[in-house]
């Protein structure tokens, strides 16, 4: 989990107190990624246990306790930054499921379903863009986070566009679609399951 590595990253700048760590974390992620205090201290304890950080040894648990990163901690951080996240297995995406199911349910216009999702996604994107336009002008971190959201949503919209096109072609030329229509759903599900 990346909260662990985010804290390591903050400590790599120099020794910090627990409370300070939480504030800086939220500030750097553009305040779109809230974190509670408990989460911070649990994580710090685990890091200390693993020898990745060390406390200044004052003993008392609390906001005034200081932490600093160890050599092992720096190595761990560097390794994590360079390791690509596991993107090979498809996430259990609700939207994908809905579209797949919609193709099977009689009386439902899949393309209407897709459009409904697309409209919602574009509305979301309009809101993010508004944030970027109005507030992210000087705030680099916020801009990066908003971009990440926009690109993520954009990817989904594109998938919807592609699905829309595929369904349109399938509707225009139904013969090749008739056979796979019955089979593909369980197979995809099975394969997705086997990887997890």
């Amino acid at each position, binding site marked *: 989990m990346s909260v662990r590595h985010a804290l390591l990253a903050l400590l790599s700048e120099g020794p910090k107190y627990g409370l300070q760590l939480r504030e800086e974390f939220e500030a750097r992620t553009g*305040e*779109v990624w*809230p974190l*509670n205090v408990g989460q911070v201290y649990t994580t710090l304890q685990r890091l200390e246990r693993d020898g990745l950080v060390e406390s200044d040894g004052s003993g008392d648990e609390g906001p005034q306790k200081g932490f600093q990163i160890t050599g092992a901690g720096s190595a761990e951080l560097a390794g994590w930054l360079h390791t690509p996240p596991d993107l090979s297995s498809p996430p259990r995406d609700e939207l994908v499921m809905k579209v797949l199911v919609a193709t099977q349910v009689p009386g439902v216009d899949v393309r209407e379903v897709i*459009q409904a999702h*697309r*409209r919602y*996604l*574009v*509305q*979301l*994107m*309009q*809101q*993010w*863009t*508004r*944030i970027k*336009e*109005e*507030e992210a002008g000087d705030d680099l971190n916020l801009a990066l986070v908003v971009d990440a959201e*926009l*690109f993520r*949503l*954009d990817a989904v*919209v*594109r998938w919807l*566009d592609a699905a*829309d*096109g595929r369904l349109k072609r399938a509707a225009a030329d139904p013969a090749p679609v008739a056979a796979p229509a019955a089979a593909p759903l369980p197979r995809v599900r099975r394969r997705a399951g086997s990887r997890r």
Partner: protein
Amino acid sequence: MSILELRGVAKTYGDGAAEVHALDGVDLTVTAGQMVAVMGPSGSGKSTLLTIAGSLEEPDRGEVLVAGMALRELSRNARARLRRRTVGYVFQDFNLLPGLTAAENVALPLELDGVPGRTARGAALRALEEVGLSARAPHFPDQLSGGERQRVAIARAVAGERRLLLADEPSGALDSGNAEAVMRLIHSACKRGVAAVVVTHDAQLASWADRVVFLRDGKIVDQTMPMAGPESLLSQGQTP
């Protein structure tokens, strides 16, 4: 006040088996200061909508009103005048006339309209200043970067109190940074009262618009609802 109004606009290309309904009964109203994005896949009729709205093509059926004038009733020359005075175009990749400097490109529609050279040039320089390119005024298009060229095109499209800006994939050939700059300029033009229609298949670009219209097979199938303010998104995100 509606700057652009399309009522039941239809356009068909070809005939017989090769008949294509580019537009099929499109209604659209864009008011002053509004930025509307038209989204849709290729072949959905986006570009046709734009050329009809800009009087470059005539619809087979339906009515187009630009700034209250019905295009159908205008002569060829009157439509050309409308393009010089009221409508500004921004295209995807080819926008500036080679052989004319940035300033001259911007001043061209004004000069074509009979504005004396000096006045037109002044207006062009002001428009270039608005897009942050005053320094590039004496440069020729081939000395400008793609982003700069597009910004000059926007300056030209809004110079001289133009009220309708029509943009066809205005940032299609640009990287995301330049694309954002271009959309920002269009949006800020709208804040000054220009009505804009941006045609794109890119959701990120469309999301700059106040309203996104979805075009499919020549018909408007959907559009985004008036949104809540951006604060809702942040507060929504902050709840764990």
